[in-house]
């Protein structure tokens, strides 16, 4: 079997695991009852207020900002670096490339460094701060290793001329995946490592702590409206206790 076929299979499998896994998780969260009102107060007293609270949490990491400026700045560099990098990667999947993707192209490059720097800082904390060292398990270290390796292989391909890859052929392969028309994948080792790691990340996403991404939207301490006295909140299983009287 050629390398192209192996990677095509890997990508399809990983995408399936990622999508199916996330759908399963999100449905599971959505269906699990929330019997009590437990927003961490002060909490917004309207739905709109809650939407803004959530927005602040996921864009500027409000709670983390209150908590620890080091983790906040490192975490923010990593996450927003990653968002830009991901958006930049859209140019490998779109033909013609969307205008706004072109527009962020130059920032995307710096973002790669920001992401790596953030990750390295976060990893350093796992060794340097005794409290964080204590709570880190092997999987926490490996997760950072995985992300750092993805970032590093990506940066190496961009910045070391010997490791440049044939972007045109790569894009043809990716578009081929989208249109079920398999094209050959360039076989430079750096690219294969990069893609192999990305596939791994996609597969572990729904079974790891990366679930914090969808999970944060379901956190009752953050997404509930503070209106317990004005509106009766009753879950199905709790209501049964009443009717059994």
């Amino acid at each position: 079997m050629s390398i192209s076929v192996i990677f095509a299979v890997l990508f399809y499998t990983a995408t399936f695991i990622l999508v199916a896994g996330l759908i399963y998780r999100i449905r599971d969260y959505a269906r699990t009852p929330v019997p009590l009102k437990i927003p961490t107060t002060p909490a917004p007293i309207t739905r709109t207020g809650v939407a803004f609270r959530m927005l602040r949490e996921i864009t500027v990491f409000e709670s983390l900002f209150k908590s620890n400026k080091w983790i906040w700045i490192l975490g923010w560099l990593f996450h927003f670096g990653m968002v830009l990098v991901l958006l930049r990667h859209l140019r490998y999947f779109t033909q013609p490339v969307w205008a706004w993707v072109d527009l962020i192209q130059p920032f995307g490059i710096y973002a790669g460094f920001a992401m790596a720097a953030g990750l390295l800082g976060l990893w350093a904390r796992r060794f340097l701060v005794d409290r964080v060292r204590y709570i880190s398990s092997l999987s926490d270290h490996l997760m950072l290793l995985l992300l750092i390796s993805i970032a590093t292989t990506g940066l190496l391909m961009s910045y070391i001329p010997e490791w440049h890859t044939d972007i045109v052929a790569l894009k043809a392969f990716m578009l081929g995946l989208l249109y079920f028309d398999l094209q050959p994948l360039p076989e430079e080792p750096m690219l294969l490592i990069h893609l192999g790691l990305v596939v791994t990340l996609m597969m572990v996403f729904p079974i790891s702590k990366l679930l914090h991404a969808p999970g944060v939207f379901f956190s009752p301490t953050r997404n509930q409206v503070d209106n317990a006295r004005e509106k009766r909140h009753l879950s199905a299983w709790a209501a049964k206790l009443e009717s059994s009287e």
Partner: protein
Amino acid sequence: MADFETPALTEFQLVPHIKKGAMAHSQPYMAKPEFQGDLGFPGELEDGWEDVAVKKLGELTSKYRGLKVFLDCCVKCGACTDKCHYYLGTADPLNMPVARQDLLRSVYRRYYTFAGKYFPWLVGAKKMTKDMLDKWYSYFHQCSQCRRCSVFCPYGIDTAEISMAAREVMDAVGVGQKYCNEIIGKVYKIGNNLGLPEKALVNTLEGLEEDVKDDTGIDVKFPVDQEGAEVLLITPSADFFAEPHIDGLIGYGKVFHQAGINWTLSSHASEAGNFGMFIGSYENMRRVALRIREAALDLKVKRIVVGECGHAWRVAYSFWNTLIGVGHGGDDPYAKALQQQLDPNYPAPQHIIELTYDLIQKGALTLDKSANDDQRVTFHDSCNVARASRMGNMPGGQFVLPREVIKSSVNHFFDMAPETIHENTFCCGGGGGLLTDDLMEIRVKGAQPRMQALMDVVQEHDVNYLAAICAICKSQFSKVLPYYNHPMNMIGSVHGLVSNAIQLGTKQ
């Protein structure tokens, strides 16, 4: 005084380096089998308990979305590690919120997640063993469920929820805590946490009327079971005779008197506290609260007001509408049966601070601040009020209203450092079912951050009165203040200050 060292107060709040096992010996007394039965739990550990525990945990994650999300989401960022007063006061790493959660999370992972089932060594998944159960019993009784960690977690992970779940699992296998479970038993048998029977309650209140009469010359009433009264007051039973709680009760009585509000206590529901919350049991929390619904219906009251108590206010504010329909906006027959009786012009339930605050705004109370001129006051935001409820109609009203009531009653008020008040408040160290002598060491050590902040205002402003609105806080502080070289009577009720300032006889 005791066989442990009171933590030193320093120039700043320090974050200690971890000291493994520093508090591993701390365990509360276990509930005796006969008391477990009253609450619907098995009496003691039986063969095969491991399976029962694991099954219970699975049941809880399918009943409580928060629990499931919290167990899945933690990224071990470490932001919460220095936020718990018990960690700050003991340096035991298992008192870091995330590490406390991990005691339960590791078991959840082992039985309920793919990674934990097949790669336990990778993600730190662990079996449910006796050794694990001992750790749970120790460290889930070193959490006062104060939710400080939840404020600072990027996903709002609330260790209080995890502690409650752990205690519920332990109860399900017959390992209950004596203090909480026996108190709940007393509520079922007698109607309040202290086991104060109706007759004694009536006598106490008559005595109180005489005391106030001697003191002020005015007939302030403390009525019980008055059918048709406008207001039903539900207050922690400690208010009936513990010091300094009782000054608060006298304060409420004087406020009602001057405002001309017709009020009553209930001998059937003579307790605001609800320890069902501490043990995480929805059923027990509901059963304890039901007495209040019954009393409200029997006495046909229009309003329900809650006295100074932290966790009780959380249960009342956040849960009563759900548990027993005390609130507004219910459209089912069960809720309506009570809600149609309640006056829609007032929040239900209403906190005594909200009531007094409104009366002050309306000019219905005559307060002479100079009566409190020998008091230099600071205020302890009780954590359950601060982070799990509200007062008034805007978010954060729970910080504003009590301070306004205090400032209307005293001339000298000084807040503690901003990082230790409002939503950042440090627990007194005795909440969440830990207010028992067998947990004295953790109580004293857990009070360290609060004592640190208090010392700063004592040194800077000569503060001599620590005002609180929580029965547990008041009892806890009267015990631990002396360990930090403060007089135990430094702690007082907010309504104790109102009581001093109010000029009865100037209005009727």
